């Protein structure tokens, strides 16, 4: 029985758990910086998203390819004349984080995490079932 075989279900499920928890981490960062106007690169915060990649040949789980900034959604311009980062017209460029859609992504990521945990549990149960046959 390949309990520890390469590409065992335990490792695959754990790689899924890791990927989803990384997604949740990035979503948390997006939500925390939903109104951040100053970053190290200058300019407002840009929402980030995780890009996942399937493992090599055969089933070997998922790896985190990269975490890249979202350049598709435009940054929002909000009129806040008193703000220190406001331009000459009184507009502040705010991050392109949409809190409702981040909350939706959070639900998706946490459900996917649960699904991977369920796979891990079911695999352990099925190994236990197989070992019951030894008795």
């Amino acid at each position, binding site marked *: *029985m390949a*309990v*520890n075989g390469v590409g*065992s279900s*335990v*490792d695959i499920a*754990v790689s899924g*758990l*890791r990927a989803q*928890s990384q997604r949740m981490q990035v979503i948390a960062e997006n939500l925390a910086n939903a109104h951040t106007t100053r970053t190290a690169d200058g300019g407002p915060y840009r929402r980030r998203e995780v890009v996942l990649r399937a493992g090599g040949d055969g089933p070997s789980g998922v790896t985190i390819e990269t975490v890249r900034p979202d350049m598709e959604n435009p940054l929002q311009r909000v009129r806040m004349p008193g703000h220190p980062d406001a331009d000459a017209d009184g507009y502040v460029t705010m991050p392109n984080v949409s809190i409702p859609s981040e909350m939706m992504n959070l639900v998706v990521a946490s459900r996917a995490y649960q699904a991977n945990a369920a796979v*891990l549990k079911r695999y*352990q149960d099925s*190994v*236990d079932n197989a*070992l019951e046959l*030894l*008795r």
Partner: protein
Amino acid sequence: MAINPIAGGPNPVSGVSGIQGTQRAQPTAKPGFQDTLQTYMKNVDKDQHASSAAVKDLLSGKSEDVLPAVAAMAKADMSFKLLVGVRNKMIEAYKQTLNMQV
């Protein structure tokens, strides 16, 4: 495996020579059941050590990721259960052989 030298020997009483026979046969023959079992037990032991090291790392704060500990514990648990199952089955077979009417 130990039965062959005893049955094949001219003197059935000398069980000791039978045991010596198996020991001599080991280097030339393919790995016996004992070696297989020992290798598997070593693997199970390695899993157990990996699991306890992962838990220790987690509790001592060396690692903040709970997932390696989860994976190591799941693997150690499953392989140990398999070892216990095989061991129970072997003891059972031994007892059945012992109670056999000759």
